[in-house]
C-alpha cells in the first residue's frame, strides 16, 4: 500500500524553491573546471588514435615526434607494458581493457600512443608525427555478425569467441506457454541506438606526482573520485594514502565520467616517471569516439494479452553491442544492469528476459547515460511494446495502461523479474496527466485532423525506474559495496560544513544537500557549505551516477543530521537543566516537554558544544554516517507528447509535452524542474537526432557536433511539468531521486506520439533517431505500398 501526499506548505528548508547556491559562480564564469587548473612546470599530453577499427600494430616510429621542439616523451602500449600498465580492469571486473594499443587496434580512434610536451600545441604536433604502421584486418561492426564468430576480435581472452556473456531472469517455460496461449500477441524488434552522453565539458586529468613526498595528486573530471582512487591504487600498486583525487567543478557527466580512460592512466604514468605534472584534456572528437557510449541494445519484445487487453506475459530477448571491451560500469552481479525493470509499471503474471552481449570493433562502453544501469533501454522496450499492443487491440493506449498498472494496494510489489517496488500510485499519476493535458479533447482533435488527412499523434509513456544502487547485499563495483556517506560538522556559531561521497556535475548538491541537513537540524541552508570531490576530506562513497545520490548520500545526510541531533539533545538538556528524556525537538528547536516556551536553538546548542558542553560529554558537534539502503527506490512518471507530422517533409513538431513525475519527497522543486527540463531535452535529442553510427568499414560517422547534434533552445520544445508525491517508505526522508527520470521516460513518449501520428499510414515502428529523412521515407513507403 502506498501513501500519496498532496504538495504541502513549505517547511523550514525541505521543499523550498531555494535558488541554487552554486549558480552565482557558474553564471559569472567563476567555476573552477579541470582545464582552469595550471600547475607550475606542467606538461601536456596528446594522444595518437588508430584510423583503423581493426588492425595489427606493425611498428611505431617515435623519432619524428621526438624531434618536435618541446616534445619530452612518447609513450606506447609496449612502454606501459614494461610498467604493468598495458591493461587495466574494467569497472565490473569481468574484463580488462588496453590503455594504449598492444599488438593491435580494436576500434577506430583507439589510443595508440601518448605524446608529452611542454605545450599543448607541441604535444598535438608531435602526435601527428608518430608514424604507426598498421596491417589492416577485417572489422566486425554488426553484433549479429559478431555472434557468428567468423572473426575473433579478442585473441587475448581464453575463450575464442566474441560472445561476452549470457544473462537471463524470469521463468522461460511459463512465459513461453503464456505467450502461446494468449489471445493477442505482439512482437517487434526494437533498437535503442548507440548514443553518447556528450557532456559539454569533455574528460580530462592532471596527474601531479610529487617525488619528494611520493604522493600522486590526480585532478580528474570524475563522477566517482573515491572509486577512482581505489582503482588507481589497485592498478599501480601505489598505496591509497599516497593518492589524492580531486574532482573540481564538472560540466556535465551523465555517466560518461565514471569509467577510467587512457588519458587518465597515461598522464599518471608520465607524471610518476617524470616527476612533473601532466595535463590531458580530450577534444570533442576524442570524447565522442573513445569514451563511454550508451545503449546499443537490439531488443525483441513480445507481449501476450487477453482479448480485453489484460496482459499475460512479457518476453524480451536482447543482443547487446558492447564494443571492443566489456567496459560497461555495471554492478558486479548485474552484467545487464537493472534491465529486469522491463516489466515496467504493469502487473505481468509471467515474464522472462535474456540478453547476450558481444564484442565488436567499436568503442567500448555501455555506460549508464543519465539512467540507472540499462533502465532506459528497459523502459523504452516496455513502453513501445505496450503501444504496439494497444494498436493491435484497437484500444486506447491510456486505457490499456490503466487496465494493467500495478495497483496502489499491491505495494510493496514483487515483480516477476525480482524487484520489490517500494511504492507508487500509477493510476493517480496517469489520470492527473490525462486531465492536465486534456486528453479527451486531444483525441477529438486528432480524429478531426485525420479526417482531413493531417497527421497528429499522442504518445504516452508511463515508466517505472529502479534507482539508488544500492543495497550492499546485492550491489558492488569491483567488490566495493555501493553505500554512500556524509560527514557534517556544525561550527560554534551555528554554520556547518557538509561533505559527501557523491560528486555533483550540475545536479545542485551544494543546495539540496544543505537543504536536507538544514531541515533536520533547524539551521540556515545558506550557512551550510557542501563540499564534494576531494578524497582527502570527503568520506568514502561510490559517487554520483545512476540516480543514486539522493537515495544513498541524501539518506546518509539525513541520518548524520539525526546523529547530531541526538548528541545535541544531551547538550540541550544541559542548557535547559532538564532530563534528556524530557527534551523534545519541535519546530526546529529543543524544548522541555510541557514547557513550550522554554527552548534552545541548534545554534545555541552548537555554541555550547564548544564553550559549555555538558559534563562528561564529548565536545564538538559533528557526525558521519555511511548509509546502506535496504532497497532500491522506484521513481515513476506519466509523460504525454503531442506531435504534428508533415508527411511531405518528415518534419515532426512537438506541440506539447507534459511530464508528471513522482520522485517521492521533493527537496527543492526548482532543482527538480531543472533536472526534468534538462533530461527531457536529452530525451528529445535521442528520439529525434542522436546516434553514433558506424559504416561497414568501422568508421565512426558522428565524431563532432556537426554530426552528433545537440539541441539548442531553437529546437527544444516547451516543457510542461507537474508532480505527484508518493514517498519511499524506506528512505529516511521519503525521497526517490529524479535526475534521470526524464531521460528514461521521454524517448518512448516521443516515439509513441510519432507512431500514433503515422498510424493512418499503417506505420507501426521506426527506430530512433526519428530523423526527418526516416519519417519522410516511412510516409513515402506507405504512400506507394
Amino acid at each position: 500500500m502506498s501513501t500519496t501526499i498532496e504538495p504541502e506548505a513549505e517547511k523550514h528548508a525541505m521543499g523550498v524553491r531555494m535558488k541554487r547556491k552554486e549558480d552565482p559562480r557558474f553564471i559569472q564564469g567563476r567555476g573552477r573546471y579541470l582545464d582552469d587548473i595550471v600547475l607550475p612546470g606542467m606538461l601536456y599530453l596528446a594522444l595518437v588514435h588508430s584510423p583503423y577499427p581493426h588492425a595489427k600494430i606493425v611498428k611505431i616510429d617515435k623519432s619524428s615526434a621526438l624531434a618536435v621542439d618541446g616534445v619530452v616523451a612518447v609513450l606506447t602500449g609496449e612502454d606501459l607494458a614494461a610498467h604493468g600498465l598495458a591493461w587495466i580492469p574494467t569497472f565490473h571486473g569481468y574484463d580488462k581493457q588496453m590503455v594504449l594499443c598492444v599488438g593491435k587496434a580494436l576500434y577506430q580512434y583507439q589510443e595508440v600512443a601518448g605524446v608529452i610536451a611542454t605545450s599543448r600545441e607541441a604535444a598535438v604536433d608531435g602526435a601527428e608525427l608518430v608514424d604507426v604502421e598498421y596491417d589492416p584486418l577485417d572489422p566486425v561492426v554488426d553484433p549479429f555478425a559478431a555472434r557468428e564468430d567468423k572473426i575473433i576480435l579478442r585473441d587475448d581472452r581464453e575463450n575464442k569467441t566474441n560472445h561476452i556473456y549470457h544473462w537471463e531472469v524470469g521463468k522461460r517455460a511459463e512465459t513461453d506457454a503464456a505467450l502461446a496461449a494468449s489471445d493477442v500477441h505482439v512482437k517487434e524488434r526494437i533498437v535503442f541506438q548507440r548514443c553518447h552522453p556528450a557532456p559539454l565539458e569533455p574528460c580530462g586529468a592532471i596527474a601531479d606526482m610529487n617525488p619528494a613526498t611520493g604522493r600522486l595528486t590526480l585532478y580528474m573530471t570524475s563522477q566517482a573520485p573515491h572509486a577512482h582512487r581505489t582503482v588507481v591504487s589497485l592498478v599501480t600498486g601505489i598505496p591509497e594514502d599516497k593518492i589524492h583525487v580531486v574532482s573540481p567543478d564538472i560540466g556535465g557527466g551523465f555517466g560518461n565520467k565514471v569509467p577510467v580512460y587512457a588519458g587518465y592512466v597515461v598522464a599518471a604514468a608520465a607524471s610518476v616517471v617524470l616527476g612533473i605534472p601532466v595535463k590531458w584534456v580530450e577534444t570533442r572528437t576524442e570524447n565522442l569516439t573513445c569514451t563511454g557510449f550508451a545503449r546499443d541494445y537490439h531488443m525483441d519484445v513480445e507481449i501476450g494479452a487477453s482479448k480485453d487487453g489484460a496482459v499475460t506475459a512479457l518476453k524480451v530477448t536482447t543482443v547487446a553491442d558492447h564494443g571492443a571491451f566489456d567496459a560497461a560500469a555495471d554492478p558486479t552481479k548485474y552484467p545487464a544492469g537493472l534491465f529486469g525493470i522491463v516489466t515496467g509499471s504493469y502487473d505481468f503474471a509471467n515474464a522472462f528476459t535474456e540478453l547476450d552481449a558481444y564484442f565488436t570493433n567499436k568503442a567500448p562502453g555501455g555506460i549508464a547515460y543519465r539512467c540507472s544501469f540499462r533502465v532506459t533501454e528497459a523502459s523504452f522496450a516496455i513502453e513501445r511494446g505496450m503501444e504496439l499492443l494497444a494498436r493491435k487491440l484497437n484500444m486506447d493506449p491510456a486505457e490499456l495502461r490503466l487496465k494493467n498498472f500495478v495497483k496502489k494496494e499491491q505495494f510493496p510489489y514483487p515483480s516477476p523479474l525480482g524487484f520489490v517496488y517500494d511504492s507508487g500510485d500509477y493510476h493517480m499519476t496517469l489520470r492527473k496527466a490525462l486531465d492536465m493535458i486534456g486528453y479527451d479533447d486531444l483525441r477529438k482533435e486528432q480524429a478531426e485532423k485525420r479526417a482531413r488527412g493531417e497527421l497528429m499523434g499522442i504518445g504516452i509513456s508511463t515508466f517505472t525506474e529502479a534507482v539508488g544502487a544500492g543495497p550492499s547485499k546485492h550491489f558492488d563495483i569491483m567488490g566495493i559495496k555501493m553505500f554512500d556517506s556524509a560527514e557534517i560538522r556544525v561550527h560554534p556559531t551555528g554554520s556547518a560544513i557538509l561533505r559527501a561521497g557523491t560528486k555533483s556535475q550540475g545536479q545542485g548538491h551544494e543546495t539540496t544537500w544543505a537543504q536536507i541537513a538544514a531541515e533536520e537540524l533547524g539551521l540556515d541552508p545558506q550557512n551550510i557549505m557542501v563540499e564534494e570531490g576531494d578524497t582527502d576530506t570527503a568520506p568514502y562513497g561510490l559517487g554520483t551516477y545512476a540516480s543514486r545520490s539522493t537515495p544513498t548520500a541524501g539518506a546518509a545526510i539525513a541520518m548524520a543530521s539525526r546523529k547530531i541531533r541526538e548528541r545535541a539533545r544531551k547538550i540541550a538538556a544541559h542548557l535547559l537543566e532538564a532530563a534528556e528524556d524530557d527534551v523534545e525537538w519541535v519546530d526546529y528547536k529543543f524544548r522541555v516537554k510541557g514547557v513550550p516556551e522554554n527552548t534552545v536553538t541548534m545554534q545555541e546548542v552548537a555554541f555550547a558544544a564548544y564553550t559549555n558542553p555538558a559534563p562528561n560529554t564529548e565536545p564538538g558537534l559533528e557526525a558521519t554516517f555511511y548509509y546502506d539502503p535496504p532497497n532500491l527506490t522506484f521513481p515513476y512518471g506519466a509523460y504525454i507528447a503531442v506531435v504534428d507530422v508533415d508527411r511531405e517533409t518528415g518534419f515532426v513538431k512537438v506541440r506539447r509535452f507534459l511530464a508528471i513525475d513522482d520522485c517521492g519527497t521533493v527537496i527543492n522543486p526548482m532543482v527538480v524542474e531543472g533536472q526534468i527540463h534538462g533530461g527531457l531535452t536529452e530525451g528529445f535529442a535521442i528520439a529525434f537526432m542522436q546516434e553514433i553510427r558506424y559504416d561497414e568499414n568501422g568508421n565512426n560517422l558522428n565524431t563532432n557536433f556537426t554530426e552528433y547534434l545537440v539541441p539548442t533552445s531553437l529546437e527544444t520544445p516547451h516543457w510542461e511539468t507537474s508532480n505527484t508525491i508518493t514517498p519511499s517508505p524506506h528512505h529516511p526522508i521519503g525521497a526517490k531521486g529524479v535526475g534521470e527520470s526524464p531521460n528514461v521516460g521521454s524517448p518512448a513518449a516521443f516515439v509513441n506520439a510519432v507512431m500514433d501520428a503515422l498510424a493512418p499510414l499503417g506505420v507501426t515502428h521506426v527506430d530512433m533517431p526519428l530523423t526527418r529523412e526516416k519519417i519522410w521515407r516511412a510516409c513515402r513507403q506507405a504512400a506507394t505500398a
Partner: protein
Amino acid sequence: MNLEYSGRERIAAGRETVWAFINDPAKIAGCMPDVIESHVVDEHTFDAVVQVAVGPVRGKFKFHVVLIPQPGGEHMDLKISGGGFGSVVDLVAGADISVQSDSTVLDWKGTATMRGPLAAVGGRVLDAQAKRVITTTFANVKAQLNSAPAGAA
C-alpha cells in the same frame, strides 16, 4: 566508407605512347592535383605530398603510389595508400587500354576507402572531392598526352 568511380578518356595518341606515359611515375605524379612535392622511389613507385581540404580535414597528406602494369600492355592497376591527421585513404584503380579508330581509350574505374575523420565528413562532400581528384588526374593524363608533340611523351 567506400566510394566507387569510373570514367573514360579518349586520347589522341597511340597506344604505345599512352602506355609509356602511364608507366612513368614522374609523369603520373605530375597529373595529380594539389601535389606539393613528389619523389620517385623506383620505376613503378612514387611518394607524394598532397594538399587536402575536405570540410574540417585540412592539411598535407602523404601518399604512396604504386603502378602495376599488367602483361600485354592493355591494363594498368594503380594502388594509392596514405593519409594524414588520423585519416587513411586507400584507392585501388584499374585502367583498360584499347584503340578505337584514331584514338587510344582509357576505361578506368576505382574504389576509394576512407577511414578516420575523413570518413565522417559526409558522403556528399567527400564524394565530390574524391571524384575531383580522380577525374582531374585522368583528365590531366589526357591533356598532357594530347598536348605533347607527336612522338614525344
